[in-house]
């Protein structure tokens, strides 16, 4: 029984010896070792399908698509969702209503956030650069003291659509 747990979790013998018998039973029943050990082969199989070869029609490769999506997210460039995505998100939100509440009720915080106006006179590029700077955690404290109060406005300026 002890060997069962040791082989799965990567625990040391000393750690297992400090458990009580009911704790050991609990782990051994599988509730304590659900995620990594069981999912690892599946994760590896999914990663094995990933290739860096571009497609035959000049499409970017799978790996390149992931990198592009990641960099878009980092630069805070958002593409508006299609109607299909909106419908899907709304249906999912309705299914999660027991946990997240009524989807049609607008929360007061979200309403307040929508009242924040974009920082006057700041371009989209400049605002997006600020947001990326703050998100990368490069912003020192003394700079944050200056911009912290107006950061919501800067964030809204970064969301302004390009024309």
């Amino acid at each position, binding site marked *: 029984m002890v060997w069962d747990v040791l082989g799965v979790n990567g625990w040391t013998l000393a750690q297992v010896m400090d*458990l*009580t018998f009911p704790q050991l039973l609990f782990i051994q029943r599988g509730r304590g070792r659900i995620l990594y050990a069981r999912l690892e082969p599946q994760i590896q199989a999914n990663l094995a399908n990933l290739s860096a070869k571009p497609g035959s029609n000049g499409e970017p490769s799978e790996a390149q698509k992931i990198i592009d999506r990641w960099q878009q997210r980092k630069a805070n460039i958002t593409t508006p969702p299609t109607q299909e995505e909106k419908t899907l998100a709304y249906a999912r939100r309705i299914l999660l209503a027991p946990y997240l509440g009524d989807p049609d009720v607008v929360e007061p915080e979200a309403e307040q956030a929508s009242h924040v106006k974009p920082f006057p006179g700041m371009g989209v590029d400049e605002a997006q650069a600020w947001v990326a700077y703050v998100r990368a955690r490069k912003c020192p404290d003394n700079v944050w003291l200056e911009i912290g109060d107006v950061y919501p406005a800067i964030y809204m300026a970064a969301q302004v659509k390009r024309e």
Partner: protein
Amino acid sequence: MSSLFTVLAGKSADTFKLGGIEFQAAPVTLREYGEYLASQEGSIADQTVWLADKLKRRLQNATKTDPEEITPDWVLDNLPLPFMKIVNHILLYGEMPKESSEKKA
């Protein structure tokens, strides 16, 4: 759900009485149980030293009873040999032995 948390904390909701003193039925760790198995090869005095040490930490009401009262001699006086098996079970599993399982066995 509450039993889940007591299990994870290494505690127990059950209590048991020995010589009029109430103890928590908290299970021992495997290391401590290994020490107990080793002590069983020695004399009965070795076993009572181990038992007294563990019972001392499982006093339900430490203000009512002085932990120093629980000595190996006290264990010898208050723990009849037939109860040894039950106390063993309690300290290993953290609960009283179930009657139904006893009847089957």
